[in-house]
């Protein structure tokens, strides 16, 4: 009960100097913003490249592929892959991107047979999916792509020498599948003068079969064909292709560390100034019977509050930034869509609170150690 009273007093003292506290919070928020964005980038990369036991997806590419343009495989492989033991489903896919380098906001066209569309589990937001089968140049556009370029149903999208009309806007279970325009395979093949040619085959493996074994079996089956293939779990390809991104994102780790250090320094500095300014207040409180532990508690609680609220502001800002900015980074036809998760937001909030508390330890000790008599007669 007494502890609670003292926590309330700490909150009251902080609230009464909320202008200064707000400035500190803004500093912490900037750090938390950086931390959230960086955590999200790293988390997205990890999720996109680390294989999980429940992953069932294989991708068949032409050997030595480094960009979708370079992978050319015949349509006719579809039936041969489907015959391999353990294969549940094969979708021939033609991928066209408007930029193969590393960049933000690449437009990806994914051509696939009309009958494969329902299997992608896309959720309709606007427009109609029926048009997809009927009109050749109709496209189903993922919402991230649509929002980035302000696309509406009925408008046309023109990129990489391909012109499609937007029939529907959809959401998907994975953010990267929302960064794509789905078009009919034969239309894409015609537009790029590559009839009968696809970029890759998306293969779904049956439950209970080992991904590696099935991949090996597919490559062996197609070994005699005119185009040698390389089959891997989707995420392994992503990891290969995204190597440059990995380097780029690894580098941001240092920025994240700097953000952590900045938060520590900002809170510690603010509290040191606060504690110096409160020498007399603390001496008066101690005269009234407050014990060194109580004084420590007041300062620690203040540090925690600054960290917590600053962290909250920062991650709300970061969430808005990532959610409405819909950023994605692409390289070699592989796209990472940055989307943050509640766990990550909790993590950043926790880190900031902890940093606030940590930053308060030294000021709290200084405040509790001061001599009452000397402080009462001090100038300030």
């Amino acid at each position: 009960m007494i502890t609670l009273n003292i926590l309330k007093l700490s909150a009251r003292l902080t609230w009464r100097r909320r202008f200064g506290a707000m400035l500190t919070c803004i500093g912490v928020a900037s750090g938390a913003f950086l931390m959230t964005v960086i955590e999200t980038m790293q988390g997205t990369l990890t999720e996109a490249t680390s294989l999980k036991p429940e992953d069932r997806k294989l991708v068949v590419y032409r050997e030595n592929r480094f960009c979708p343009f370079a992978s050319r495989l015949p349509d006719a492989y579809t039936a041969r892959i489907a015959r391999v033991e353990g294969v549940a489903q094969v979708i021939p896919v033609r991928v066209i991107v408007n930029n193969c380098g590393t960049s933000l906001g690449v437009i990806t066209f994914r051509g696939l047979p009309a009958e494969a569309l329902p299997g992608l589990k896309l959720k309709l937001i606007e427009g109609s999916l029926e048009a997809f089968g009927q009109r050749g140049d109709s496209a189903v556009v993922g919402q991230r792509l649509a929002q980035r370029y302000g696309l509406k149903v009925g408008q046309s999208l023109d990129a990489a020498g391909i012109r499609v009309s937007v029939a529907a806007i959809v959401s998907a279970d994975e953010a990267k599948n929302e960064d794509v325009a789905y078009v009919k395979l034969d239309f894409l093949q015609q537009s790029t003068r590559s009839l009968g040619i696809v970029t890759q085959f998306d293969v779904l493996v049956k439950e209970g079969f080992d991904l590696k074994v099935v991949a090996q079996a597919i490559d062996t089956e197609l070994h005699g064909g005119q185009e040698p293939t390389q089959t891997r779990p989707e995420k392994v390809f992503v990891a290969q292709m995204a190597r440059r991104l990995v380097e780029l994102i690894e580098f941001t780790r240092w920025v994240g560390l700097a953000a952590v250090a900045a938060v520590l320094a900002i809170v510690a500095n603010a509290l040191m100034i606060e504690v110096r300014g409160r020498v007399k207040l603390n001496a008066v409180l101690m005269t009234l019977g407050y014990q060194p532990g109580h004084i420590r508690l007041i300062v620690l609680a203040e540090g925690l509050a600054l960290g917590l609220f600053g962290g909250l502001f920062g991650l709300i800002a970061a969430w808005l930034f990532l959610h409405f900015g819909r950023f994605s980074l692409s390289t070699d036809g592989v796209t990472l869509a940055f989307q943050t998760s509640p766990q990550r937001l909790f993590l950043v909030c926790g880190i900031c609170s902890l940093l606030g508390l940590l930053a308060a330890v030294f000021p709290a000790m200084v405040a509790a150690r001061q001599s009452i008599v000397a402080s009462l007669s001090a100038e300030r």
Partner: protein
Amino acid sequence: MFITCQNITKSFKKGDQIITPLQALTLDLEKGSFTALMGPSGSGKTTLLNLLAGIDSPSSGRLEVAGTDITRLSRSQLGAWRAQNIGYIFQLYHLVPVLTAYENVELPLLLQPLSAAERHKRVCTALDLVALSDRAEHFPRQLSGGQEQRVAIARAIVADPPLLVADEPTGDLDAASAKAILQLLRQLVNDLGKTIVMVTHDAKAAAVADRILHLEKGQLVSDI
């Protein structure tokens, strides 16, 4: 005896110089007495008051206040002891500027296991006693010096400690406000049985006390 000082000495080290503001002082004070402490500047009045209030410790000697040998207590124990036994009234009031009069008076009660309702009742009673109920929501800067000192007195008595110490409580006030404060202190002794030790430079102020002690160079020179 309510307060027993036996041979208490207090010295400070300042560089390689040792200052001894109190020299082997022996003094007894009765419960319910009102004592004025006088003497020239630097004679050790504040130092003695701080020892009695347990915010400083003597270098040697025995000091018993309200039945406790306070020289044996740790810093934390002293804090807890002060919360129960001491009300300190400063010359410059030392109210917390960011807290209202009400919140200032409430401060000592936050250290006690009281319900919010009980706390409210006690704060109101204390503010009533100093006739400032109508100023409860005002901040110190919105009060006059005399009113600030009355809030400080309410804060000193709200936890009902037996001993009040006051260091020149009227030193910064005009004659009228000073008179009101002195009357209030007298009333606390008469009606509530508080024991008060008050430092003052003013003979008129000292006149409200039952007993006047003169300190000079850390020693008791007269006792009236």
